[in-house]
């Protein structure tokens, strides 16, 4: 298990390479990378992510432990940034490794759904100089319900 909550930029292809090199007897590797969109109609100046130091990393580890119980997966990685992020920059990534594709895909989607609504991060967008907190969307809460 690899968890990092960091302000620093990360190169997701370098991270996935490192992650994959630590694996043995794996048949399927799934990655998800979230990127700051440079929205079209509105012009996003930048994004700012606040988090709850202490709780964040512990919460992510609990979510990963839970995924280990639910699926036969070999390993998982979560990197999540906080602070100021420019359009086009990576926000976070998840990687899962398993023997078979179904497990790797499901575990990655599970981790994403939980990170969206259960890991203590809050996003603020600054658009044309005006800032607003991103509101949680009902669809994310609905997405969680399929794992109950």
């Amino acid at each position, binding site marked *: 298990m690899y968890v990092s909550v960091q302000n620093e930029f990360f190169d997701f292809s370098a991270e996935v390479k490192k992650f994959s090199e630590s694996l043995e007897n794996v048949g399927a590797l799934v990655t998800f990378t979230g990127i700051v969109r440079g929205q079209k109609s509105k012009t996003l100046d930048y994004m700012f992510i606040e988090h*709850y130091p202490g709780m964040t990393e512990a919460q992510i580890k609990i979510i990963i432990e839970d995924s280990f119980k639910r699926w036969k997966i070999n390993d998982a990685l979560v990197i*999540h940034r906080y602070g100021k992020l420019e359009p086009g920059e990576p*926000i976070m990534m998840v990687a899962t490794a398993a023997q078979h594709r179904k497990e790797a895909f499901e575990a990655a989607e599970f981790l994403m759904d939980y*990170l*969206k609504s*259960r890991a203590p991060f809050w996003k603020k967008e600054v658009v044309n100089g005006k800032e607003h907190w991103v509101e949680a969307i009902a669809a994310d809460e609905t997405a969680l319900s399929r794992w109950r």
Partner: protein
Amino acid sequence: MIDLIYFSWIRERIGKSGESIETKSSTVFELIDELRQKDTRYFEVFSDLGSFRVAINQELASFDAPLIGAKEIAFFPPMTGG
């Protein structure tokens, strides 16, 4: 003494990132009620129970959770990670 921590727009509207308080409240709900009575800012921030979440000692908790053993209570809006 219990440490209260505020995040996101709760922090911004209350105007501070946290504070230490003495309380006789025995549940989260009683504590929220106590905070509401401090002043208008608190009253408005905590008026809609559906708009925020609470964590006790860095674990998500429900509003009827007891405060026994609580050292750090955080209030924040629904998370928007990922």
